């Protein structure tokens, strides 16, 4: 069984296949019955150890639109709060015969670990500060819808790169798809290993904005911070926030993205967030199509069309 654990595992062809499939599935809204019978009789488990509304409901709806049976397992109010380990939860799911497991966990690498324990396909719905591949896929889909081909596009990712799984997944996937990615962050919020990533790094947002086709703003993930990374929120916002003045420096057709949830007035001003060039709500809509595509390609056939052949333990 194959899995979707990292955006970096997808080849150009596989990533393109997901995006093409998502494009066809996005037309479902015109149907009188907004459902496909494709995954009838298959079971998808949403295993969420971290709070998430957007991602969990998106995966849940995606699975239901494909007629799969969906079980939601959240850490609160389940055996997990009674002290059950991830492995025991996984074996319980295994015993129930789950065909697919979507996992969100605060520990980086949790999805890889799970993939070695269960027979079903594992989809990484966000593991710690590591990866969030379906977010990267829906971002790529949104860029493609707005800008056409991704090859040669200049994508700038601004904000808390250190704690962001979205940034890593996006850098890997966008690089595969031929885009040029630049990370912009305070030096304290750039990961030590960033030189191994296929992207450029800058500390000054003003220099990069005029040369960007796409700007992706990241939320400052205060809940993951174990220390002081910048003096005050106000200073961060003044130096790295996307306000009206900085927005004006962008090329006229550039778009602004945000994976959500946004903190208005911190990394993005309300005016920019509500601009027609902001794709925030489109990203949510596209997330559904992309997750349907991923579930279809992993679970729809006799074997998966995408993803890792085997998990690395």
């Amino acid at each position, binding site marked *: 069984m194959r899995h979707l654990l990292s955006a970096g595992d997808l080849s150009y062809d596989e990533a393109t*296949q997901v995006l*093409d*499939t998502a494009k*066809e*599935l996005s*037309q479902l809204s*015109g*149907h*009188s*019955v907004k*459902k*496909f*019978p*494709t995954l009838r009789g298959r079971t998808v488990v949403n295993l969420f150890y971290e709070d998430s509304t957007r991602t969990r409901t998106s995966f849940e709806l995606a699975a239901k639109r494909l007629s799969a049976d969906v079980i939601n397992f959240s850490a609160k109010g389940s055996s997990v709060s009674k002290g059950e380990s991830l492995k025991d939860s996984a074996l319980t799911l295994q015993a129930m015969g789950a065909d697919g497991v979507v996992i969100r966990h605060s520990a980086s690498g949790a999805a890889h670990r799970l993939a070695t324990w269960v027979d079903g396909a594992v989809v990484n719905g966000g593991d710690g500060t590591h990866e969030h591949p379906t977010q990267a896929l829906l971002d790529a889909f949104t860029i493609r819808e707005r800008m056409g081909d991704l090859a040669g596009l200049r994508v700038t990712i601004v904000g808390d790169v250190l704690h962001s799984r979205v940034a890593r997944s996006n850098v890997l996937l966008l690089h595969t798809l031929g885009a040029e990615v630049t990370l912009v962050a305070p030096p304290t919020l750039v990961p030590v290993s960033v030189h191994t990533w296929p992207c450029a790094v800058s500390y000054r947002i003003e220099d990069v904005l005029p040369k960007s086709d796409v700007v992706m703003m990241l939320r400052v993930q205060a809940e993951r911070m174990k220390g002081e990374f910048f003096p005050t929120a106000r200073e961060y916002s003044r130096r790295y926030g996307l306000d009206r003045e900085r927005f004006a420096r962008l090329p006229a057709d550039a778009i602004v993205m945000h994976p959500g949830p946004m903190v208005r007035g911190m990394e993005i001003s309300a005016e920019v967030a509500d601009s027609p060039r902001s794709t925030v709500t489109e990203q949510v809509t596209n997330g559904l199509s992309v997750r349907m595509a991923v579930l*279809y*390609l*992993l*679970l*729809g*056939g*006799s*074997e*998966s*069309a995408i993803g890792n052949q085997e998990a690395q333990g």
Partner: protein
Amino acid sequence: MCAKKRANGDESGGGDPPSRTEPEGSRAVLEGPEISRALTRIAHEVLERTKGGEGVILLGIPTRGVPLARRLAERIERVEDRHVPWGSLDITMYRDDLRLAPARALGRTEIPADGIHDSVVVLVDDVLFSGRSVRAALDALNDLGRPRAVQLATLVDRGHRQLPIRADYVGKNLPTSLREKVTVLLDELDDRDAVLVGPAKPRNVAEGDR
């Protein structure tokens, strides 16, 4: 087994440049002019059966049903001076053999803007074989809306039905053996109009299960 028919169609549309020489052992049973005449006749029959084409929508089943639907729409327009909406209906998500092969790429579904409600949908496919594609298409239509009636047009009916399905309009009835394969080539995709009958290679069975 309808997978086999599709796979054969895919094969002819594949990377190899089309050539005038037939693949080994196969012969052309229909050439361009005959295909053209058959489509013109079907266009007339559609107009007759639907009393002038009122409310007709032509939906081609990808891949080769789609150009056929477009050609039929053009012919009807020429004959009766009536615009007939046409589109495509992908059946991949409704196939009954999905579990027999890795997940397939999806084709395009494009339905005319006004939808199919209360219309007469004519499904258009290149080859009618087991009938399983048509069953999938009927299921897909059911999720799109509620047409007044559904009819089926096919360029070639090669027999060997596995379901109680028949075509309303047939370009050519082509009695075949299960050891043969039927390949439809269309100008839009293959730079040539022809219907070929040749021996099914043993590996085609495996390919058909793709």
